[in-house]
């Protein structure tokens, strides 16, 4: 199966910003690819401080939430920190309903996420 790039990665100082490319993170193939690409940031590239930027994301399913939870565990296990930012209100509601807004460190903007990170 062809794998395309699902996240854009850039570095600001010691922080890695990973921006989701897709508008819809709904189907299994897509979500598997996103998971592998996120996990590689920690497991292969050893990145410690990671910001996930959701500004392009319009839809997100519960299976995608599962990958984010696993990512959070991997980052913490390696002694790093993960922040989420730029989540639009509809999607923030998904985090609020599932109470995952308590589990994740969520900031309004990328600037806020980089502040004191």
């Amino acid at each position: 199966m062809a794998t395309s790039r699902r996240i854009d990665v850039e570095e600001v100082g010691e922080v890695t910003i990973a921006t989701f490319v897709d508008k819809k993170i709904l189907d299994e193939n897509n979500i598997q690819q996103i998971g592998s690409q996120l996990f590689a940031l920690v497991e292969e590239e050893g990145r410690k401080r990671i910001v996930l930027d959701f500004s392009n994301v319009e839809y997100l399913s519960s299976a995608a939430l599962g990958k984010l939870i696993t990512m959070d565990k991997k980052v913490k296990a390696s002694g790093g920190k993960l922040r989420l930012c730029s989540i639009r209100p509809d999607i923030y509601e998904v985090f609020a309903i599932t109470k995952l807004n308590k589990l994740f460190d969520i900031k309004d903007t990328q600037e806020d996420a980089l502040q004191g990170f």
Partner: protein
Amino acid sequence: MKMKSGSAVISSDEAAALDVQDQIIELLESFSFSNRDLFSIRLALAEAITNAIRHGNRMDPSKTVTIEWAVSPQQISVTITDEGAGFDPETLVDPTEEENLDRPGGRGVLLIQNFMDEVIYNDRGNSLQIIKQMSASES
């Protein structure tokens, strides 16, 4: 505008599921449902069809998922039926409990219930009807 209804039978395949979602969303756009409603319905459809494929049919490509919809200017109703043994939604653990928060799965049903106005299971638990009223227009 009158009511419009339709149906699709797909194999246990996520790409086919996305096509049906797109088809239903396109129909809703022609009925002027708000973006907020479209978000809720697409999310609920994605969760319900994914559950039917993964948990109902256990990804068996020889099994199908039937999706039937009826849209009017007031509401949408969609019934999703798989060929699995069915389940009792009452037996699911609450994914919002502190001790379950870091589990990677088990949130689809919760999201469907929150984003839809009505969620009705058949007795066997292999068929789910979801209903959403059109929201008052945001002006």
